[in-house]
């Protein structure tokens, strides 16, 4: 095999291999060449549920940033979430951050609902309005508790009704 033919084939092979890798990274995966700037905001939550780092931050369903860090405040016993927001998006100071679930059993993400304030959130600001994740067990026990309370009230009303008559 001539040296030059060999070199050509190996070159083709290596190029094809890199093309395959690129295809995987860009088309199959979510690698983006976003050299966009980001700024950070903080938000405290009573319960973050299953929120993970690099989870999406969406507003109106569009991804505007990613969760960069999750910490714990030992004084207020709340979770501190650091949000990396794309620099081109500005949000008013009374924007609320909620932890939502995509789909029924899907991954959790942070949803931002813009408020009406004139002033915008700057880098390093803390968001004041937050809503924790819905934890299934709490939901169920709440439901059962309210059902039980309903039943008791009905019983009381019935009794009061009878007595009041």
């Amino acid at each position, binding site marked *: *095999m001539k*040296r030059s033919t*060999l*070199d050509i*084939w*190996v070159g*083709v*092979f*290596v190029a*094809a*291999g*890199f093309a*395959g*890798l690129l*295809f*995987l*990274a860009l*088309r*199959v*995966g*979510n*690698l983006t060449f976003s050299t966009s700037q980001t700024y950070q905001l903080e938000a405290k939550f009573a319960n973050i549920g299953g929120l*993970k*780092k*690099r989870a999406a931050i969406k507003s109106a369903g569009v991804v505007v940033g990613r969760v960069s860090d999750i910490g714990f405040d030992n004084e207020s016993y709340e979770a501190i979430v650091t949000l990396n927001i794309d620099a081109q998006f500005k949000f008013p100071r009374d924007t609320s951050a909620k932890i939502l679930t995509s789909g029924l059993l899907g991954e959790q993400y942070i949803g931002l609902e813009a408020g009406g304030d004139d002033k915008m959130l700057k880098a390093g600001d803390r968001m004041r309005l937050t809503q924790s994740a819905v934890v299934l067990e709490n939901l169920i026990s709440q439901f059962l508790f309210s059902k039980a309370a309903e039943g008791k009230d009905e019983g009381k009303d019935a009794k009061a009704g009878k007595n009041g008559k």
Partner: protein
Amino acid sequence: MAELFEKLGGAVTRRIWQLGYAARFFAHVLMHSGTALGRFSLTIREMYFAGVMSLVIILVSGLFVGMVLGLQGYDTLQRYGSSEALGILVALSLVRELGPVVSGLLFASRAGSAITAEIGLMKATEQLAAMEMMAVDPIARVVAPRFWAGVLSMPLLAALFSAMGIFGGYLVGVQLIGVDEGAFWSQMQASVDWRQDILNGVIKSFVFGVAVTWIAVFEGYDATPTAEGVSGATTRTVVTSSLAILALDFVLTALMFTGGTAR
């Protein structure tokens, strides 16, 4: 009874000695890689024989594996009404596991056994000895280029396998069965993380490449210089490489994929 233990102990100590010997050989190859990397044409030549010649089997196998994933995946997913997740299923299965592992196994049986046979035969016909007599280090000239060729070729082959597989899954899922094309690609893109999944897959294939090629050159260099010796070495290469790939796959998967979710 004592004989049994003696044999067992002997077998174990022999294996450990062999492992130590193989490790020293590995260090030796790495230290004498100067020629392989300096005169890169030697390595390129070996990349042709190890990598380019394996392209056909890798691409064809990748295509078929992807197509089967498409069929089987659709069959299972549509029972739960989640047939739109087919893209995710095919992509993650290939990129995380099947790509590195299956291409590693194919590489071991095609290129690995060829390398072992070649080096073993050179040893049996005294070509390696002749080289040493001419003051040329056979490890630097013959072994190291083949080692680096294997290490560099494996990640590329694994990437091509995964890419072909995804294409195969697309062919079956979208074109043949009729899963929505948009959903196929967009759900895939949303769920396949480039760092967590693809990069880890590349790391795996790199580790497999090192393991397979190391075993292949070692068995060849260490083979008994007879016909039976070389044939035994070739078989051992394929068997040991395959086991090594599967064992390493478990270790790497445990490190990469469960460690991340334990928050």
